[in-house]
């Protein structure tokens, strides 16, 4: 059984779950009602993607586990819920980018734009993955992502090329978030393995196209592309910024306080 496939699937799931949770924090706080609904819609799309990946990861883990311990017995079976609610901070493999705080509306928009642009290119490749399940989830998610990308690009342009105040806030957001973009293209060991197996995407080919697309939008938004920024990494391997702990505390509270509780 291929452990890197499990890790790879969890990585994809964690990205979507954590960003979904972050965007969800806007619920009831959006600048206007319509945008409040828009960003929480995106949250739900992301959590939907996360569920698909977690369900698949759980299946792989369980198949793997029974092989290792054929007696069965009290074997803890993984489910999408145990994977989301009962793993610890160091076990999460999401990008540092998606766990960053919402900041102001501009910063949340920019985080979404960076991620959606990446996810779009990534899932375009994953559609052709040799792993049928990953290919199917990627294909299904791509329509949603196309809309996330369109929505967030327009907002980046609107705010970057908007008023003096909105431009200033966007420049600050770029300054805040750019350092987390490099991690997207730096393959963790399980990503390299998945790529060489034809299951995962080839990250190095994504970087140039990502940068091209971002340059186009930044150009239109009259935002400068930062240069020579030291890139933060580690999220994919479980080394996170201080923010993830707080996110998980909130996200996992119910299952930790009332184990096995159900709605």
């Amino acid at each position: 059984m291929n452990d890197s496939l499990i890790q790879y699937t969890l990585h994809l799931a964690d990205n979507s779950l954590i960003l979904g949770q972050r965007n969800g924090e806007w619920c009831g706080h959006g600048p206007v009602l319509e945008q409040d609904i828009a960003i929480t819609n995106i949250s739900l799309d992301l959590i939907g993607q996360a569920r698909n990946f977690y369900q698949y990861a759980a299946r792989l883990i369980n198949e793997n586990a029974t092989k290792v311990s054929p007696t069965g017995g009290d074997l803890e079976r993984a489910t999408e819920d145990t994977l989301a609610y009962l793993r610890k901070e160091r076990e999460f493999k999401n990008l540092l980018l998606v766990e960053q705080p919402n900041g102001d509306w501009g910063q949340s928009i920019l985080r979404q734009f960076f991620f959606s642009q990446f996810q779009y290119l990534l899932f375009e490749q994953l559609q052709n993955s040799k792993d049928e399940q990953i290919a199917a989830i990627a294909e299904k998610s791509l329509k949603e992502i196309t809309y996330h990308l369109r929505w967030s690009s327009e907002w980046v342009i609107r705010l970057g090329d908007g008023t003096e105040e909105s431009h200033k806030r966007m420049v600050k957001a770029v300054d805040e978030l750019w350092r987390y973009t490099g991690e997207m293209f730096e393959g963790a060991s399980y990503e390299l393995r998945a790529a060489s197996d034809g299951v995962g995407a080839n990250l190095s080919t994504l970087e140039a196209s990502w940068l091209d697309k971002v340059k186009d939008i930044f150009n239109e938004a009259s935002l400068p592309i930062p240069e020579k920024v030291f890139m933060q990494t580690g999220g994919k391997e479980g080394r996170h910024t201080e923010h993830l702990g707080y996110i998980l505390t909130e996200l996992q509270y119910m299952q930790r306080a009332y184990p096995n509780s159900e709605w």
Partner: protein
Amino acid sequence: MNTYIRKFYYGDIPEDKTGGNITSMDSKSDWPLWEVFIRSKQGLDHKHVGSLHAADAQMAIENARDVYTRRMEGVSIWVVESKYIHASNPEEAGELYEPAVDKVYRHPTFYDLPDEVNQM
């Protein structure tokens, strides 16, 4: 007549973080109102479903998509800025509509419809 919507905050997000506090009582900084029309499936007409605020037509369509088609209500969206809609005056209802009240012969209820016709 202009009406303003004031946003109230609650919870743990301070006002200066939301960006919402930039909106002022100055009507110039308020987004215009748009009327939304949705076609629920091919072949049917667009129906008015409500209104929303947006900065431009593009944003209005996207907002309409998010607000009014979340539960598969539509396959096509029209938006039009509310200020371009001209409405009849309710005070003129008398001369406009009452003359039709006593002209029941204009209704097609005096015909026997064949059973095969079911879309009337």
